[in-house]
């Protein structure tokens, strides 16, 4: 059999890059309509920037309102004397990040050309600022000089990549660039006079002309040092380490970190450990070992039809527990009810893991991990109070926003995928149920659902069963978001060719294997753009939780800060800051999705 080989015929000719002047002529002033558009929108853009700068720098603005209330905006309700816990948690994350960067040997290189472009862009931005901002002539000169410095530096870098024949330094490691960038930011806290603003014992402290408080700059510095040092230490000794085991250990630590860090941050000083030891741990252990044993038996290859019957019996029992709870027939812990349903679902998919001993043990281990996570979640989310409560939920501000968004996304994703599969399945009952669910949820506003879950749901719950406010929010929001997510996934499912189903059938895969290995990966890849859109939407719409009484960052900026006697009616500054924060997070998600698309696009040509 002859192979067609591609003969390499020299290198690709280098395309001569056009000079900036040519670029501008070709793209902005190529013909009369284009020229008019350029001029009109240029003037409009300059006018808009000028207006915005005027707003920000106007003497009427009271930015100290934002600076003073930064803690409130980030973590309303979190006691100030406990903040060290947050820093400890962040420090753990920093060390983990540094270790991981070193162990995985991040080799990303940042081209000097890109850096020179960024530098020149900053220079242009500074010049623009100097020209447009309403500032005194002397400070205007200062900004112009800064802009010129940046421009010259950037241009110098650019020329060095162009003329340097031996090209010793084409790029620098991304890791070191990031460390340097973060280091510069931290350093600025020590030398730039941002001013010190705080409420000390209820008294407003406002000192201009000095750097920020030690309690702010010191922790940030420690964070940076931890990150860089852990990286440097490991990169030195990396060659002597068993890399495979180190990676496994780090993955385990990352996996544990949400549990441990959450415990560090949110642990109630009066938390009832007696209950945990006497009830929570034994229940979890029982499910891990007894449930794992049942699942191990159910994955026996020779079991056949008996396995399916057992799974169905478990499912009926699991559902019956909820019916019984509704009528109050017999008491049972909520997490036990949930665990029985999980056990039934695991039993249903068990036949897919009926193979050698290793596969079966892996499956049982997965079950143990699932129980640990779900029990921890139920305990954590359903604990009615921690720390000193200053509102209906134990979180507030940006941390509430993040908590609700992250948890909702994590939980609604699997639910949405299941709903989409149900809606496209050939089983009529599943199809009708899923379609009905999706359509009815989509016909109801999010606010209605949040009201329902925080006010009306507790009336329907069986006696003695409580649901914490935050749990109600996350549950309602998850059910809402899953319906929309399901429709996005369904779009992806429809794009998978019929031939893929046929090929999977023809090699003998079962329906669930076909779905898991062939259909879903392809469908999800297609759904990345709408799913990220959905994720951004979920993040932004967390602001609606304010309606049922929770204090998220937007509500604090809009209602709490303007109500303080010192900053009566000062609202615009906070709102601008909040919109910038929302934008940064949403934009990062969008950027990340673009990279994700590039990565999973591998192999598709």
């Amino acid at each position, binding site marked *: 059999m002859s192979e067609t080989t591609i003969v390499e015929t020299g290198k690709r000719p280098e395309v001569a890059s056009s000079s900036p002047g040519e670029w501008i002529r070709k793209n902005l002033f190529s013909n009369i309509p284009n020229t008019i558009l350029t001029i009109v929108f240029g003037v409009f853009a300059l006018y808009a920037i000028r207006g915005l700068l005027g707003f920000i720098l106007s003497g009427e603005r009271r930015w100290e309102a934002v600076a003073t209330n930064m803690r409130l905006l980030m973590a309303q309700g979190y006691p100030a004397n406990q903040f060290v816990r947050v820093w400890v948690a962040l420090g753990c994350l920093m060390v983990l990040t540094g270790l991981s960067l070193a162990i995985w040997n991040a080799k990303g290189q940042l081209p000097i050309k890109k850096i020179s472009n960024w530098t020149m862009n900053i220079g242009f931005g500074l010049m623009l600022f100097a020209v447009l901002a309403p500032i005194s002539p002397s400070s205007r000169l200062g900004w112009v000089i800064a802009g010129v410095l940046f421009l010259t530096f950037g241009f110098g870098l650019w020329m060095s990549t162009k003329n340097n024949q031996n090209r010793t330094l084409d790029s620098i490691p991304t890791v070191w660039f990031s460390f340097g960038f973060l280091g510069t930011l931290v350093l600025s806290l020590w030398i730039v006079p941002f001013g010190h603003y705080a409420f000390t014992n209820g008294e407003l402290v406002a000192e201009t002309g000095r750097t920020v408080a030690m309690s702010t700059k010191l922790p940030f510095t420690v964070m940076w040092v931890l990150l860089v040092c852990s990286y440097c230490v490991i990169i030195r000794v990396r060659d002597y380490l068993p890399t495979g085991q180190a990676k496994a250990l780090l993955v385990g630590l990352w996996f544990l970190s949400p549990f441990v860090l959450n415990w560090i941050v949110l642990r109630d000083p009066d938390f009832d450990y007696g209950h945990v030891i006497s009830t929570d741990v034994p229940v979890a252990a029982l499910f891990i070992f007894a449930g794992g044993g049942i699942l191990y038996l159910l994955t026996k290859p020779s079991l056949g039809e008996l396995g399916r019957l057992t799974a169905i019996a478990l499912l009926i029992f699991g559902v019956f527990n909820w019916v019984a709870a509704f009528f109050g027939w017999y008491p049972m812990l909520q997490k036990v009810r949930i665990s029985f349903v999980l056990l039934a679902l695991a039993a249903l998919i068990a036949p897919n893991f009926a193979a050698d001993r290793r596969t079966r043990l892996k499956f049982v281990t997965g079950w143990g991990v699932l129980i640990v996570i779900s029990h921890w979640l139920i305990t954590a989310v359903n604990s009615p109070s921690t720390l000193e409560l200053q509102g209906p939920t134990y979180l507030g501000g940006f941390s509430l926003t993040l908590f609700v968004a992250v948890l909702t996304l994590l939980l609604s994703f699997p639910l949405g995928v299941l709903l989409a599969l149900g809606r496209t399945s050939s089983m009529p009952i599943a199809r009708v149920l899923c379609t009905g669910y999706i359509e009815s949820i989509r016909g109801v506003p999010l606010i209605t659902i949040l009201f329902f879950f925080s006010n009306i749901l507790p009336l329907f719950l069986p006696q003695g069963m409580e649901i914490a406010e935050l749990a109600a929010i996350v549950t309602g929001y998850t059910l809402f978001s899953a319906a929309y997510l399901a429709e996005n996934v369904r779009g992806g499912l429809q794009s998978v060719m019929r031939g893929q189903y046929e*090929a*999977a*059938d*023809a090699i003998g895969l079962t329906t669930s294997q076909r779905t898991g290995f062939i259909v879903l990966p392809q469908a999800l*890849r297609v759904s990345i753009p709408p799913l990220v859109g959905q994720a951004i939407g979920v993040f932004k719409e967390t602001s609606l939780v304010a309606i049922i009484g929770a204090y998220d960052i937007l509500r604090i900026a809009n209602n709490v800060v303007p109500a303080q006697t010192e900053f009566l009616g000062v609202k615009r500054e906070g709102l601008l800051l909040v919109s910038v924060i929302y934008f940064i997070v949403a934009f990062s998600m969008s950027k990340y999705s673009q990279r994700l698309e590039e990565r999973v696009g591998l192999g598709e040509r």
Partner: protein
Amino acid sequence: MSTETTNENRSDMIVCENVDKWFGDFQALKGVSATIAEQEVVVVLGPSGSGKSTWIRCINRLEAHQQGTIIVDGVELTNDLRNIEKIRSEVGMVFQQFNLFPHISVLDNVTLAPKWVRKMPKAAAEKKAEELLEMVGIPEQAAKYPGQLSGGQQQRVAIARALAMEPRIMLFDEPTSALDPEMIKEVLDVMKDLAHGGMTMMVVTHEMGFAREVADRIIFMESGEIVESGTPEHFFTNPTEDRTKLFLSQIL
């Protein structure tokens, strides 16, 4: 319409009796009866729309027939899921459009079914896949993705994927129709090797040269019926039916 087996000593691998298949009101198969023996290579010919693809898709139940019986390797095809899964792991199928899984590498395409259906350990499945890729002549492409291969290479991967399940029967549904002319030979060569190795094969194709050279028997279909069945020699030189003569006069 006779369905004589060429050798009485061999067991029957596929037995079809009066198979009927409708798509809505359109009857695609009209009382198709045929028996295919072990190690026999049968080429199914016929004009487009004659039901030849539908027929071989019925044999591993990608399409369900409505009347008649199909018995594959001693198991009758019914709605019973376990029978279908059993037969599908015994019958390999190669499609006109290859239908490789584009999101996983060539090696994973080949090892997926052995690992998850046959429960073969990963190392053994990969060793087997490497042997098969060697056999179809593309061992160096294992790490690539299907989209990075040419059509002929993709079809050869598809054959390796089907063979990885160690099937007793291979079905080919127009395996070369979507290929550029220069790629057809490399696929046909693999199929010839397979036939000479003793695989039971049913091939729907328009490649007359392949049919003449490799087939033990040629079945000619038109309008959902088997019109004529016989050895290549008989079929190409001395066809009995008028419709066969007309078909041959149009394509030769």
